[in-house]
């Protein structure tokens, strides 16, 4: 991937800002998501709540199923590959996916190395719990970052924790003297040039979305007020009572995330939210995968 392609890939993420990216498992769900105002869809065979329930090894989706979704909608289509599984990523690039999510939601294929994303022309989004993780993924070639909130739980607590931690660490770097940044880079285990970028710009060099546990319009607006530039919603929509209505409400809440009056209106009569599982009740913390 040359520098210009990397730039174009970061640019696509800029176009997604202020939007909602929705998990879908069928062309029909993809159309419902597009109709409801999704700015992109994530094509996968099972949504995270079902992956969690099913257990076992979870892999990249069937390319035929992904192609069906690509044909069903005009918005960008993303798909997940396992952490470190660069051949799954090659397959997704071969079917011209718009964005690859190297995702902890699937079973990791490599417990040491992430994919060298600089070797691909297609862009990658990766999860991060803190600034060090985010900058390592960006150094490996990720052109978009998201929080690693616990997928399939409907519990926002981890996404909040990650977003707050990342932003606190960014503020800390901004406040440092330049000669202190080298030590900060050492502690974060990331290259100095990225630390200098954050120090000078007060933000990541790529777009940063919230992901994991978003189930209501208020959850989405909470993440936006905490500094997310957009939101992924996984199980929260198609595991709820009225997916189309909830999806539309979350889209509008992301656009008007500071307007409590509007969020109140949007939160009315949405039907049942996804049931949800608390962090303490789950056996498997997916956020621990890939650091």
């Amino acid at each position, binding site marked *: 991937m040359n520098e*210009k392609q990397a*730039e*174009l*890939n970061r*640019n*696509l993420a*800029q*176009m*997604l*800002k*202020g*939007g909602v990216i929705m998990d879908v498992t069928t062309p029909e769900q993809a159309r419902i998501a*597009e109709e409801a*105002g*999704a*700015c*992109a869809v994530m094509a996968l065979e099972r949504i995270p709540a079902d992956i969690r329930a099913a257990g076992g090894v979870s892999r990249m989706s069937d390319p035929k199923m992904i192609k069906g979704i*690509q044909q069903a909608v*005009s*918005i*960008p289509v993303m798909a997940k590959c396992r952490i470190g599984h660069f051949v799954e990523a090659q397959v997704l*690039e071969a079917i*011209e*996916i*718009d*964005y690859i999510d190297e995702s902890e939601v699937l079973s990791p294929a490599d417990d040491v190395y992430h994919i060298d994303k600089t070797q691909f*022309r*297609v*862009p990658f989004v990766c999860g991060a719990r803190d600034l060090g993780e985010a900058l390592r993924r960006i150094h490996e070639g990720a052109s978009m970052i998201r929080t690693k909130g616990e997928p399939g739980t409907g519990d926002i607590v981890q996404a909040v924790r990650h977003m707050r931690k990342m932003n606190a660490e960014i503020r800390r770097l901004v406040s440092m003297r330049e000669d202190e940044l080298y030590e900060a880079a050492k502690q974060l285990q990331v290259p100095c040039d990225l630390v200098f970028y954050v120090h000078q710009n007060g933000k990541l060099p790529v777009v940063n979305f919230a992901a994991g546990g978003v189930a209501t319009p208020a959850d989405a607006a909470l993440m936006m007020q905490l500094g997310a530039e957009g939101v992924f919603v996984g199980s929260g929509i198609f595991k709820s009572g009225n997916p189309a209505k909830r999806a*539309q409400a979350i*889209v*509008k809440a*992301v*656009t*008007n995330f500071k*307007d409590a009056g*509007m969020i109140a209106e949007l939160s009315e009569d949405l039907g049942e939210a996804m049931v949800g599982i608390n962090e303490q009740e789950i056996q498997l913390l997916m956020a621990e995968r890939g650091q």
Partner: protein
Amino acid sequence: MRERIAVLALQGAFLEHEQALERLNIDWCEIRQAKDLEQAFDGLILPGGESTVQGKLLRELGLFHALKKRIEDGMPVMATCAGLILLAEHLVDDPTVWFGTLPVTVRRNAYGRQLGSFFTRGAFGDIADCPMTFIRAPFVESCRPGVEVLSRFDGQITAVRWQNQLAMAFHPELDQDMRIHRNFLEMVRHPASCLCCS
């Protein structure tokens, strides 16, 4: 007079346009919901993003008719990428029409998926050698007489002006070159005032 430019801030790369206006020391405001239309502004920027999302939100947040009327009445508007789609009178293979105020036919995702996104440099009207970033971009397949073609890439039309509407398939807000934004501000200062004879 000090101009004020409104930026449609429903979804997409509106922040980048706001930063461009900041660099040019131009006053700006955001349009996110109907009550934002109560403030005074002299021109409108429709940013890149997803046209399906922006179009839907325009309608559902009660912005659509008021903005369409103002564009029809001659308020200067600059549209980039998704914005071009919102202004177009026709889309190829798609019955959707949003504002429909610009007499052109636009093909969405005309260069394919993200792997087809590209950067080039080219002329924009009288402005030579403009940086042009195309992200899953549309192009103008045809335009009606009277529409001024400002840019082409590979034979296809990528920027047009008609009356007070300036629309392009690429993203000047993603590069540091401010000449296209300046060009738009000139239009805001000196709009084609009489629409019937412009």
